[in-house]
């Protein structure tokens, strides 16, 4: 199995944020995690990516146990994530943000050459900026970009690590409808190239990109299956207060 989460639990005091969550993922699939606010989606990401250790349960990646492994080690193994709240290097240029991310995936033997002489990260950065449409803004300080461009940069930094599994936490949060549309296109381009787990509130996006949808509510898995099956699930409708999805 490419990726597996087994009976994962994490609580904060009396609050059971993630309760006995299990799912598996084949290579190349795109899984969306949806659920109301406070359902435990981001906590699940945080436990998977080593921000918090789980109280119980296991995370397996390519047959190896990676439970509680620190984020830098997970990154080297091929798991990268983006953040719900933009988490970039505000004072560095757009180019420097991506280059730093490209530089991290493997240790360089040329630790004391000038960074601009590192051929691979420099070329890779150009490619990613091109993919994101940020080439024109390469020298701009990241903190001065529009919210949407900062979100793209966030996605770019995640991809720069060349992960085989990428976890996007609400990539379209705060984006305009146009930007959301562009992000859906971007994720579609990535489908098949990497395995994706995506937390998203934009239902159009969820149905446009997902092979499978996992619904969470109050820390529990409410439903897990193909989009059509989840759409028809009564418990899911109830969790969304009867809202038609």
């Amino acid at each position, binding site marked *: 199995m490419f990726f597996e989460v087994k009976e994962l639990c994490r609580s904060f005091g009396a609050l059971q944020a993630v309760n006995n969550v299990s799912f598996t993922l084949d290579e190349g699939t795109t899984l969306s995690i949806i659920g109301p606010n406070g359902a435990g989606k981001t906590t699940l990401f945080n436990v998977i990516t080593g921000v918090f250790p789980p109280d119980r349960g296991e995370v397996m990646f390519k047959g190896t146990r990676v439970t509680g492994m620190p*984020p830098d080690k997970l990154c080297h193994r091929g798991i990268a994530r983006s953040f719900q709240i933009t988490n970039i290097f505000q004072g560095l240029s757009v180019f420097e943000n991506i280059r730093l991310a490209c530089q991290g995936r493997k240790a360089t033997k040329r630790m004391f050459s000038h960074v601009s002489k590192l051929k691979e990260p420099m070329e890779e950065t150009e490619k990613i900026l091109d993919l994101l449409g940020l080439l024109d803004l390469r020298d701009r300080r990241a903190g001065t970009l529009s919210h949407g461009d900062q979100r793209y940069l966030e996605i770019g930094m995640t991809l720069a690590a060349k992960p085989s599994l990428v976890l996007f936490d609400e990539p379209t949060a705060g984006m305009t409808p146009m930007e959301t549309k562009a992000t859906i296109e971007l994720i579609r381009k990535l489908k098949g190239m990497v395995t994706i787990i995506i937390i998203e509130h934009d239902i159009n996006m969820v149905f446009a990109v997902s092979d499978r949808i996992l619904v969470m509510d109050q820390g529990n898995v409410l439903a897990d299956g193909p989009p059509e099956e989840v759409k028809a699930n009564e418990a899911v409708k109830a969790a969304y207060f009867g809202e038609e999805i």
Partner: protein
Amino acid sequence: MAKLNSGSNFKKTFLVHAIILAALAVLPLFLNGYHQKLAVEAIILSVFAMSLDLVMGYAGIATFGHAAFFGIGGYAMGVMLKFLFPSMWLGLILAGFCTAILAFFIGFVSIRAKGIYFAILTLAFAEVVYRIIFHSYNTPLGGSDGLVGVPTPMLHLGFVDIDLRNTVNFYWVAVAFAYLSYLVCRLIVGSPFGSILSGIRENENRVPFLGFNVKWTKVTTFVLAGIFAGFSGAMFTAFKTYADTEQLNFLLSGKVIVMALIGGIGTLIGPMVGAVVITIFESIISTYFRAHHLIIGALFVIVVIFMPKGLFGLFARKDRNNNGS
């Protein structure tokens, strides 16, 4: 075009360096004995201030105990020259070794704490080092009297021996030492390692998700900065012919922060300029006012409020050479 630009940039930088070095080289010929000595001290202290810039300006870690490394480097040089072997090189090696171990220990233990908590821990450790040496009366270190009577050795360069008892000779060696230290630090901050430091300064929490180990990067930086502070302390002792507890004192830790901030942190050259300005300024005004620290304090307040990038920040162009554009 890019190549052409980088070539002309290199020529320009080379020319600027050559002019500054030439000016510094002839400077002592126009100074009297007292001012020559002051110039040596200022140049040695400039390396100390630059070493602080590695941790504070580049990695964004505030430390209140940097004088511990300057002092230990000074004592290491003193012990080597007075009791072991009269060699500047061996003194510098011992100073580097001792400060690396001390910085590793302090850094490793304290690095889990962040911000002001880390700064206070470094202050506490530096104070422990200070107290231990201050009370070491019955040891060769001399307690609060300091380690006095350190002989000034010859500097063996292989092809020539330089008599460091001559102030002008020491001055030239100090300039070479400061310039080499600057080049090495410039190499560090412009390297892949240096860009991780910028990442830590800007957003420490994101850095691990890009595949970097923040803890070890910070400890390594702390050790590198400690070693350079140790080297400058060692040079200071060799020049002054003594090592005393003032070199370890928290007042010096505070003063080096003032030097770095007045010069402009995150530039390497700024803190060097700050150290020279403060050392010379202090010497001039202390002849007229007893309360000269008051004036330095006022200068500090003015710089922090009106020139947050320091004196050097007024002239420095924004370094965007790392972008490959």
